């Protein structure tokens, strides 16, 4: 029914089947919007956050999706600045995912803050010493860049491109895309880093405080490197999942291997850096603040194990898989490594956002626990549903994978 809106040469499910797929996601979105509305209307007491757990599931979600959405800037950098031509096959998908991740994160942030209408205060009275100011400025700018990168993808839709002004505008945007890619890389470098810096500067929390290079704690650089490693892995994963769900070949094996190799190289740097940083923290930083790291989780040794896992199973192992040529040629190993890398991000962000706040800072404190309320979970799921819907629509009506037409012919 909507065949004329779908790009030529691409097979898509019948409209009815597509709507059946969208149905549950739309329902989830509606539920999530309702939860967000409740929190905005009645107050944040509907969440399970409190004065000790001031950051909760939403901040954890924000940090995770922003790190995973880093694929957008990194692929743009690799393609437009370093001229890695094979990544042209996934750049549209990467930009779409980036747009979804950042817009979703901003929406959740507006629900998370107590006074969203005062959001402009950060711009009007910025505190340049605060990492959060840096995050706010950069993420807002970068969302703008992503919007300008995403709109041309939509304008290339088969029906929309027939409008001359759309096609001409899209063509001219494409000619200047490398400038936007460069600006996006610059902005991403800073906000990915500052998200890490948020925690590294907290001299009141020995668990996360780290040594600094200049004004930037090591977590600043660790976050950038981990985001750069996770970006290509997440693109690998989402492309593979999309191709499995839609039962189509979307990219060549070469593209998967390229993404894996890039992720692997960066993981080498990350594992090395993180190991050194942790050792410095254990031996110097934390004791200097009067705490031995042993004591943090003395009552719950399983929590310490999570730290080890992050660097070993979720860091070293996928790196080893990616860097082994024999394994890299098999898609199942690539996907395994991608899953592990992305989980590594999730674990790392969890440790920083949730575990930090659970830990005592004063001698009469207890180890606390936190579980999000159903309203919080609902709003969280709203972002997931939003992402699925936007991606599904983009996949159906825009040309996210330029190689698809060629590949399905063979």
């Amino acid at each position, binding site marked *: 029914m909507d065949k004329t809106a779908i790009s030529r040469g691409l097979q898509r499910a019948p409209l009815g089947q597509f709507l059946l797929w969208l149905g549950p996601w739309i329902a989830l979105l509606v539920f999530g919007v309702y939860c967000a509305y409740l929190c905005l209307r009645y107050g944040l007491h509907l969440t399970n956050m409190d004065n000790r757990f001031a950051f909760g599931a939403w901040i954890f979600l924000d940090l995770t999706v922003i790190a995973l959405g880093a694929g957008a800037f990194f692929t743009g950098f690799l393609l437009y600045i370093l001229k890695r031509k094979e990544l042209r096959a996934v750049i549209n998908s990467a930009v779409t995912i980036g747009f979804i991740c950042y817009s979703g994160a901003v929406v959740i942030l507006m629900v998370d803050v107590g006074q969203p209408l005062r959001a402009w205060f950060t711009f009007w009275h910025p505190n340049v010493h605060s990492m959060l100011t840096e995050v706010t400025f950069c993420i807002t700018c970068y969302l703008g860049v992503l919007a300008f990168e995403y709109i041309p993808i939509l304008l290339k839709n088969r029906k929309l491109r027939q409008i001359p002004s759309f096609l*001409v505008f899209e063509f001219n945007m494409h000619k200047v895309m490398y400038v936007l890619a460069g600006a996006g890389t610059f902005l991403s470098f800073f906000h990915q880093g500052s998200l890490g810096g948020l925690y590294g500067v907290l001299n009141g929390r020995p668990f996360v405080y780290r040594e600094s290079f200049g004004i930037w704690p090591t977590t600043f650089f660790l976050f950038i490197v981990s985001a750069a490693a996770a970006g290509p892995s997440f693109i690998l994963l989402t492309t593979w999942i999309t191709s499995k769900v839609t039962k189509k070949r979307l990219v060549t094996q070469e593209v998967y291997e390229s993404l894996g190799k890039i992720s692997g190289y960066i993981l080498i740097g990350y594992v090395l850096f993180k190991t050194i940083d942790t050792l410095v923290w254990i031996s110097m930083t934390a004791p200097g603040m009067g705490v031995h790291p042993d004591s943090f989780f003395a009552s719950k040794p399983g929590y310490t194990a999570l730290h080890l896992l992050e660097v070993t199973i979720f860091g070293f192992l996928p790196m080893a898989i990616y860097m082994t040529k024999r394994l890299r040629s098999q898609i199942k190993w690539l996907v395994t490594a991608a899953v592990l890398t992305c989980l590594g991000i999730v674990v790392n962000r969890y440790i920083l956002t949730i575990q930090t706040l659970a830990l005592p800072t004063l001698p009469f404190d207890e180890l606390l626990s936190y579980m999000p309320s159903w309203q919080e979970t609902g709003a969280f799921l709203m972002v997931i549903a939003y992402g699925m819907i936007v991606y599904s629509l983009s996949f159906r009506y825009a040309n996210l994978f330029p190689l698809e037409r060629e590949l399905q012919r063979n």
Partner: protein
Amino acid sequence: MFPWVYGFEWTAGNVIFLGLFFTVVIVILTTVTVAVVRSRRAFKERRHHEVKWESTFEDLGSEARPCRHQLSGETDQRMCRHGFECKDCSFHKQMLDSAYKLVEAESDRYYHRGHAWVRKESYSTVIIGLDDFATRIVGPKARAKLPKIGRMIHENGTAWRFLLGDESVRVLAPVSGQVIEHGGPDRGWYLKVKLLDQGADLRHLLTGNEVNPWMEYEMARLIRMIPESCQAGLTEDGQLVDDVTAKCPSLEWDLVCSEILLEP
């Protein structure tokens, strides 16, 4: 944020941070503005058709873009990067100036890569038609939506549209001019066009010895699109059947036409 806002101080931190921020914002806005301005200029100078074609050409697969000199055997595998606009192509000029000269055939037709042909009627008028190959692919059932008399057509823009059901494909116009007559389908769809500039510049069109190798190439391209089971029924008495897509149910009219008529 700005110096006149209450609480602002000219500290090094503020200057560097806000300086960088405003620089990045200006760079982004300037870039987008440049794209918008260039687009508007293209429309004002009526070059938007050229831009549309440039964009469309980029989306054609590499298979659809072999250089005419590759097809005529003059050079190795080469992809056209110039929108088939051989008139101002440095490579085409270089090939013309070189030792190999094409022998001009007596044929009075000049072929566009989009399968429309041009025949000079007089100094300032031409006839535009669709070649036999494309006509058989479009088939007799499609209805042509020809431009009105007096309408302007633009080189590499739309000459006319074919409609079948709710799908449509356009035919690329080989030259620019004003439509003074149109007709068909009894002896084939055609347009009679009064040229914009006096004297037709047809250097971007294939002619003479170039035509056959190109036709063979296009035929091979067509065969690659057709599943093996249907390939036998493609020709009758050594000629392509009247209605190619009708012979094969799994073949989509829209898809085949879009490949041959260069509308991705």
